[in-house]
């Protein structure tokens, strides 16, 4: 029996991993499309940049450059060049930052991961308890308040919330909440003061990034738990004298957690969206703002790498949430 269980789970995981790699290939097509979509190739914008600063490029050099970068070869060859280099960790050079793209990504990836992970924890830590509380006290004042805030949260665009929060802190406390740390701490070695400063800056980004997910998950949790609470098994358990808190925790909450777990991948995609928006407005050291600047400047290698990295992370997130769900819910892995 045990080996069967293992087998089913392993087979399920293998299937998911195979599919995730197909998705990654599709996403790489999409990212390559991002490079190709703007009219002209990146050399055109580079030349434009150069001529703006007064340096001309003659056409012979241009042809040579075009050949050197392989821009005169068929699309599919170019794609293969790009994707195989990407896989080896060579993502090209960003003319916007005049740095290698992988250096830029490596600088910002840890911040992105840390912030996304923190906002995921924050989302769950708020959404699940509030969902349970409001379902148990349906139509109470707290329930209405939570629903109201959730609706407002879903209706407010992230950039607006970021602006309003920044404005609020600026007017009330006279502090600028941009970034993740005050300027004097940037580049300083890790110290308690620095950690404290970091923690002080954390709430605004967390709220901005998480608000959409929190609102959504709270409502999902509340709705599923309400459905479960009306089922006969709950009445039976109550009739047998099980204390209410134990009953809730042990049975209906476990069932209601299923959709929450399965939305993990979706939540991650949502958080990357929030992270991009919050990152741009609040000036966070994450990948989103870099992608934004790169898109505006048509620095396509950088932009495509950012899209690629964020998509890979999302696909990984979907994979992990699928596996976790399969582990918790036998119907999935046997289905």
């Amino acid at each position, binding site marked *: 029996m045990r080996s069967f269980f293992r087998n089913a789970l392993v087979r399920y995981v293998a299937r998911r991993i195979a599919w995730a790699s197909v998705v990654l290939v599709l996403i790489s097509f999409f990212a390559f499309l991002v490079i190709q979509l703007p009219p002209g190739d990146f050399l055109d914008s580079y030349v434009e940049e150069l001529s703006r600063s007064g340096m001309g490029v003659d056409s012979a050099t241009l042809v040579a450059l075009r050949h050197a970068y392989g821009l005169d070869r068929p699309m599919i060859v170019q794609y293969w060049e790009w994707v195989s280099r990407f896989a080896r960790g060579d993502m090209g050079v960003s003319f916007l930052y005049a740095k290698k793209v992988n250096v830029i990504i490596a600088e910002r990836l840890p911040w992105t991961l840390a912030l996304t992970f923190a906002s995921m924890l924050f989302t769950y830590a708020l959404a699940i308890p509030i969902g349970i509380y409001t379902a148990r006290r349906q139509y109470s004042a707290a329930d209405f308040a939570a629903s109201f805030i959730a609706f407002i949260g879903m209706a407010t*665009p992230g950039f607006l919330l970021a602006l309003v929060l920044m404005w609020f802190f600026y007017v009330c406390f006279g502090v600028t909440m941009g970034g993740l740390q005050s300027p004097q701490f940037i580049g300083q070695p890790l110290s308690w003061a620095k950690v404290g400063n970091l923690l002080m800056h954390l709430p605004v980004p967390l709220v901005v990034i998480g608000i959409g997910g929190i609102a959504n998950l709270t409502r999902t949790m509340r709705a599923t738990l309400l459905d479960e609470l009306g089922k006969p098994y709950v009445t039976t358990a109550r009739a047998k004298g099980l204390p209410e808190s134990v009953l809730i925790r042990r049975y209906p909450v476990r069932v209601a957690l299923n959709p929450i777990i399965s939305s993990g991948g979706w939540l991650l995609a949502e958080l990357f969206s929030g992270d991009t928006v919050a990152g741009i407005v609040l000036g966070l050291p994450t990948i989103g703002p870099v992608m934004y600047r790169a898109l505006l400047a048509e620095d396509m290698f950088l932009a495509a790498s950012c899209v690629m990295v964020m998509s890979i992370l999302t696909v990984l997130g979907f994979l992990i949430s699928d596996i976790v769900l399969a582990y918790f819910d036998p119907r999935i892995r046997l289905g």
Partner: protein
Amino acid sequence: MSELHAATTADDDVSWSQWKLMRVKFSSHKLAFVSIWLLGAFYLLALFAQFLAPYGPWQPSPYAYAPPTRVHLFFHGKLVGPMVYRTTIESDPQTFERNFVVDESRPAPIHWFVHGAPYQWLGFIPCSLHLFGVEKDAQLNLMGTDILGRDCFSRDLIATQISLTVGLIGVFITFVLGCLIGGASGYYGGVVDNLVQRLVEFVTCLPTVPMWMALGAAIPASWSNLKVYFTITVILALRSWTGLSRQVRSKLLEMREEDYIVAARVAGATDWGIILRHLLPGFASYLIVNLTVEIPRMILGETTLSFFGLGLRPPTVSWGVLLQDAQNLAAISTYPWLMFPACMVVVCVLAFNFLGDGLRDAADPYKE
């Protein structure tokens, strides 16, 4: 509620039609009921925006960043009807700061039905009539002005046209894509279904805002406003059809096996006959609910994209484009009226969400 209860439980011959049940259930959802009227008002506003706006959206004036004009009813203690005072600009000789000086001796009455900036109503009827306005040497800026001295109230009103229709057109594209793809998936099943489901998973894997931004940035700067507008709606719909197609598919799969469908098939009805006559009415209400929920997301998407300069661009006027002026703290704290479009976004999206909630309840009137 009790009315509904009576209708569904009473044993007498009074049985209400499904639509009547839905209507009753819908009107018992008070927020949704208020929302539908609010949204109706919003769309009416959009329809007559140029008429209601005292100025054209691009009409500049020397009054840059003027605060909202105060409307008075009394002049020297006498009721004279709505009027404003003429304002002059004076610059401080020391700081070079521009000050707006209200001249309380020169009132300018607000006139009704005046001829002002010409516009094309509905895009083709030439018109110059405005609901209200003041004489040329006075300024009436109910919501202040922007950096070029353009009237924010007029711009906010006219922006509703673009922002509210982006949602509708985007939802129409979503509807077509979702029904076709989801319908094929649910109806044919097998390989087609498998492929479509994988496609849906793939699209769900893409982080929304980065994907929108990447596509939005790819729109050439040379395109006309109209072309950009439609491209943006397509970009927004590219992500949102997945939800609808899933719904259509699961509904089709579920209903294919229902007794009455099997009966229709046995009775010799054609495939298309069954789909159009029996299946479609069966889940039309679900489709409407899903589409209603999509509209606010589209509006938020357009606003976000335009705010970041990757969506609609000036001279198009939309809520997102208007909010570009409020991108930094200095602008917001000095000229708070630039934030007004944000309030409209929030109110409108809230109303759509409540409406969706009410419709979802109404779509299933038998559920208590």
